[in-house]
């Protein structure tokens, strides 16, 4: 008898102790984040023929530099960039952080890349490999960089990184 009373008291207590953990939304996000994390900082060597003065390649590099994505891009893409209307291709959006020749609304989070060839290449301060690596994975040069990571994330191909690099170091 005594036992029954105790048990029913216990049951009662657990029924009435409030527990709202089951009625609220508390979705799990850890897998989404885990799958979205970065591979570690990677060193890349420029492939043969990476840096070019080819007009079309530089035009593609410029296009990627100045635009956010294919849905937002104002002008038609240059020869060699073919995007189906249904696809969204991400571009570099480098002007968000960098000013450069003909930039529209260029930002100033990163250094101004105007006259980059004269200031940084011809003066010998930078070489092709440095600029290529910086764009591919800037963490190698600067662990705490605020710049985007463009090759390790597979946002772009090696060829595209070459074209963007060729544009940055070109005479404009």
């Amino acid at each position, binding site marked *: 008898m005594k036992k029954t009373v105790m048990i029913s008291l216990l049951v009662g207590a657990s029924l009435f102790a409030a527990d709202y*953990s089951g009625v609220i939304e508390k979705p799990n996000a850890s897998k989404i984040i885990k799958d979205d994390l*970065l591979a570690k900082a990677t060193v890349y060597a420029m492939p043969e023929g990476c840096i070019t003065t080819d007009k079309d390649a530089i035009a593609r590099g410029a296009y990627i530099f100045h635009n956010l994505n294919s849905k937002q891009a104002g002008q038609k893409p240059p020869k060699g960039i073919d995007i189906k209307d249904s696809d969204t291709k991400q571009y570099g959006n480098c002007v968000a952080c960098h000013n450069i020749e003909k930039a529209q609304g260029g*930002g100033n989070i990163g250094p101004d890349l105007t006259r980059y060839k004269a200031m940084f290449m011809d003066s010998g301060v930078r070489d092709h490999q440095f600029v290529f690596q910086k764009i591919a994975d800037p963490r190698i040069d600067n662990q705490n960089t605020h710049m985007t990571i463009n090759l390790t994330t597979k946002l772009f191909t090696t060829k595209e990184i070459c074209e963007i690099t060729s544009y940055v170091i070109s005479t404009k």
Partner: protein
Amino acid sequence: MKGTIKIVLSLTLLWSLSFASEQFSMSDADREMYAEMLEDNPADIMVGNGSELLEEYCGGDAGLAEFLNVSEDELPAYIAGFPRYLKDFKQVVALDQVLQALMSKNGHKPFALKSSDMFDMGAYAKSIANGEKIQIDVDANKHIKESYELGKLTFEQKRGSRGLSCLSCHSSQVIGSVLRTQPLPDLSAKGNAPAATWPAYRMTKSSLRTLQRRFQGCMNNALLAVIPLGSPEMVGLEVYLTQEAKGFEIAIPGLKR
């Protein structure tokens, strides 16, 4: 409705207004529209709706106070301390999750966290604390400490196809720099203190949005995988940015670009 909802002049706005050059994203026409909205925040109607919803589903301010075990007088200051660890939830919760539980207790199906009804009701509930200073205590217990740490990690972790973190654009080093025509805001109590000024009317979206919804906006723009509202990481981010905004006076609804 308890107290009049203050029309709040958000710092973001003042700050944006002070940039008059063409380089920036606000045109003169935008600026004029802002000036008008300052007189009359469109979100006041939504917060009014939220007040009615709280009345109907949660027993109003009194019902909320009772549910939280505080007096109605203590309620504003108590709300200014969210997110917090609550034993009955076995976790750190944001205010909207509390409202979900209260709806359920009262026999109603809780509004989804991402529903506009929840945005309205949550905005009203937070506005009860208007004029109070943010007073989160991240040292109160181990649960809130952990939530803070998770939030900090989530803020600093680089991810997504551009390899960015929240910190990439919101570290003290880059505040005030320009990201494609937009000045980068200071998220601390020295700046815009978003934790004290969201929920807010977002002009560019023509709607009332919450702080966690704003986080999703940045994730989306910067190509970080968007995580769901109410997840421990989202609540952690809210804890982290609420701590950053500590001491700032709550002013809901805010008004943002």
